[in-house]
């Protein structure tokens, strides 16, 4: 009885999901993307992501779709739990008959989805998850990733960190895989670039539960000359506020992952940590024609500035559409071979999905936090092409056993 109810139930739901897209009239012959993400668990990042996604979808379909077919998306919320993501991936493949899978924010969910994709022989384009394992240690034939990985962002920051006079470094990172591998790469690469550095304190607060005062004191105890920060979200906010009051950042350079992303710097308002060297997204000052067009369209549709998530959602759809168009088919094996080496132009510039490890060469912006109109923004920034911040192919082959 349950199965009967749910058919009609879901039919209604997917119709709702697709309302934004004019594809609705041709729903039966539309190409379907199944998208699984932690919408209720990570709303701050995923709302702009979803908006960017829908903007791109609208654009692609307004131009007539791909290969004469509209594209339609079926969204699912995994609530932040990998086991539910696996269930909905199955739901999308079995009941919704989607052609490809996409999505994922948390790394473990990205890996779980990648494993389903591998098992079911379906293309999975991971948009957000940063873990290196997704394309290296646990990489597989069907999984690709758009965003610059933990390794790439750490490598970009190491380049800056190595220019600083500081020799004594303290590190703080959330206690899970992302934080740990960010610290590991930062230490490895910085040691390689500058053999005389020392790491004098390391802190691993539980994600979302930083005890900022005690953590800062423990960092202070190491008497560092510079600090590498990987915390983000609420942890970052608390860390910055307490650290500022306690003078942790005075006379010290801070190098920080992701802090220049509006998602994480905006909540700090005027308390944004001026002078930190960060990776991020200078949405207000990036005036390339591609980005201006995107920003204007986004502002017109949603009445707000895009965030990094918006770009990621937007370019995920564009990447899939480009692959579909070039392959001329929804055959997943064909799509995989098309994506290997596929080049396209994004709002950040040209990127390529590398054949060797399925990682895109989308880069990130590196700059310094400054204050403008009571809000933290990036200054003195420049774009770092992801292609330059990946290990040599010989190393990648060792890192990625799947080939």
């Amino acid at each position, binding site marked *: 009885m349950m199965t009967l109810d*749910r058919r009609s139930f879901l039919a209604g739901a997917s119709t709702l999901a697709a309302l934004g897209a004019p594809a609705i009239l041709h729903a039966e012959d539309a190409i379907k993307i199944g998208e699984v993400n932690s919408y209720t668990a990570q709303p701050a990042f995923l709302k702009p992501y979803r908006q960017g996604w829908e903007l791109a979808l609208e654009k692609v379909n307004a131009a007539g779709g791909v290969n004469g077919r509209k594209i339609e998306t079926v969204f699912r*919320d995994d609530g932040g739990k990998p086991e539910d993501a696996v269930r909905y991936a199955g739901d999308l493949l079995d009941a919704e008959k989607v052609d490809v899978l996409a999505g994922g924010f948390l790394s*473990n969910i990205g890996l779980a989805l990648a494993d389903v994709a591998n098992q079911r022989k379906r293309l999975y384009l991971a948009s957000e998850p940063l873990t290196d394992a997704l394309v290296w240690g646990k990489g597989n034939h069907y999984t690709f990733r758009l965003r610059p990985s933990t390794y790439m962002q750490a490598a970009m920051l190491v380049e800056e960190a190595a220019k600083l006079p500081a020799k004594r470094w303290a590190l703080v990172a959330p206690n899970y895989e992302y934080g740990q591998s960010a610290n590991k790469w930062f230490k490895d690469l910085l040691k390689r670039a500058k053999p005389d550095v020392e790491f004098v304190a390391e802190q691993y607060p539980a994600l979302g539960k930083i005890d900022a005062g005690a953590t800062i004191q423990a960092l202070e105890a190491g008497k560092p000359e510079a600090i590498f920060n990987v915390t983000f979200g609420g942890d970052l906010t608390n860390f910055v506020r307490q650290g500022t009051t306690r003078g942790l950042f005075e006379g010290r350079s801070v190098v920080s992952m992701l802090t220049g992303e509006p998602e994480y710097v905006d909540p700090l308002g005027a308390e944004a940590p001026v002078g930190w060297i960060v990776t991020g997204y200078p949405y207000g000052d990036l005036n390339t024609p591609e980005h201006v067009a995107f920003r204007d369209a986004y502002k017109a549709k949603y009445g707000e500035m895009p965030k990094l998530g918006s770009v990621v959602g937007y370019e995920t759809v564009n990447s899939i559409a480009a692959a579909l168009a070039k392959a001329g088919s929804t055959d997943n094996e064909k799509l995989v071979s098309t994506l290997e080496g596929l080049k396209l132009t994004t709002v950040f510039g040209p990127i390529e999905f590398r054949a060797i490890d399925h990682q895109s060469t989308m880069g990130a912006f590196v700059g310094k936090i400054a204050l403008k109109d009571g809000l933290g923004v990036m200054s003195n920034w420049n774009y770092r092409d992801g292609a330059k911040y990946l290990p040599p192919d010989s190393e990648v082959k060792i890192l990625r056993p799947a080939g």
Partner: protein
Amino acid sequence: MTVLSPDILLIQALNGLASASSLFLVASGLSIIFGVTRVVNFAHGSFYMLGAYLGWSLTHRVMTLGAPGFWGSVLAAALIVGAVGVLVEMLILRRLRRAPELYPLLATFGVVLIVQDVALAIWGPEDLLGPRAPGLTGFVSILASRFPVYELFLIAVGPLLLGGLWLLFRRTRFGLLVRAATQDREMVAALGVDERRLFSSVFFLGSALAGLGGALQLPREAVNLNMDVSVVVEAFVVVVVGGLGSLVGAYVSAVLIGVIQAFGILFLPKITLVLVFLVMGIVLAVRPYGLFGRFGEGEGLRSSVQETVLRPLSATSRAVFTLAVLLIAAMPFFAGDYAMGLIAELLILAVFAASLHFLMGLGGMASFGHAAFFGIGAYGAALAFKGLQWPMAASLVAAPFAAAFAGLVAGWLCVRLSGVYLAMLSLAVAQIAWAASFQWVALTGGDNGLLGVWPPTVFASRSGFLLLTLALTVAALAALRIAAFSPFGYALRAARDAPRRAEASGIDVRAMQWAGFVIAAAFAGIAGGLYAFAKGSVFPTYLAIGKSVDGLIMVLLGGIGSLTGPIIGAFAFGGLEAELMASVAFWRAILGLVILALVLVAPSGIMGLIGTRIVKAAKPAAPA
């Protein structure tokens, strides 16, 4: 190397004290509410979060007023939250006073879900940074270090509040009644005290304290949507470590936990995940009733399921069961892959819920950490399959053994306690197991989990796996039923209903409970092993608090008074959640409303509503 000068140690101690005050604010309210009403209030963290959000909104309205505006807002936020607490008490919990004692917990869980979505709808998804407290924005120099003035203020708030509450409870008539009700609420009622007013006022006080705690966090941390769950668990830990019903105990334990946490960060930075639970585990192992608790407090949860009479299945029920099994077995002929996958998952959850029911319903041991055994079963199967390259059948057999072994250890610790203490110790054990699965990366893959645990051969298809799951589920549920009606099952229930009489008639109560614990763990392990193959992967979330809570919800929703209850509960809750998540954005609020509606309509669970074997709920449990 870290240089430990005296000023660093001093500052770290102060950091610990500041955290302790924050913890105490929340824990004191929880303790007062639990003491008088015996409600395990999961929504207490939601009140804390509401206090923070309301404080944020109010302070932003009156920014221009400076200090009076800020402190007025904090106070107003606390009062509003207090009023919300009264509303929850009057509209929901009051109606459940005659229900078995764990049912209010189910209702408060519904409130948690609703508040999460309401907060998201009102305040949006982004973290909100509150203003600094006017007049307390700076720092003082202590030796060579800087320490924020606001933290000093917080350090003072804890003892001041403790003193204020002490005066309230020792010097006023209200306090006298609260203390009397904490000790024997039936006697207080019999003496003519208006229980309703007392309960409402206690809820007001407790919730307002939570709201105050939340609002006072504004100057130190960003307000966010995850504050509720993270704080409520810690607050429970503080209350239990301190000893239920003791405010002094709560303060001492808040200080203990705050300071240990601060120094833990200094010396063992990676231990932050689990330190609090380690402290609780050690305290409860040494002092089973907490630092300041007395024997007998917190027995409530245990007596909640007394006098449930189990009856064998009626002819009608047998027919219904047989029909359901046949229907599921026939699914490969008419249902789609997704439906079969979902039903397989619900069957597995039914085994998990039934194993928890065996522990709670028959053994009288409410566990807040049962997911540990589910997860250990899943890891056991996955490691046997992937690590040792065992065949699937052998890996599935390994699962219950791994879980039973863990149950042997955990059970030995837990069965020495009862009621809330047992529940919280089981939570501590589960959290330690969770932290191990999270941080023992070489074995478990850490939070990235173990992948590629897909069933081979005929079981790779949804229909094959469904039939396998159905067969094992029916076998497991039948085995649990047989155990319940065996002499062992009767002895277990005797130990639950009348431990002293059971002892007197020669039953080794602890041995029975220990055995019950191990059996429940083993069956949770069976479910976990199947789950690993159903999902193709295993993650630490399988052991997390959320999964344990899910299990509790399923058991309570179905009805604790019958063996069928957990099966119905698993299908109702698991199915509802899966369907809602797939189709509605605000699924949490809807799920919360459904749970509330069910609890109010059927205060003994769905099986109680169906009604042939209604729990004899009319009798409130007598404090021991």
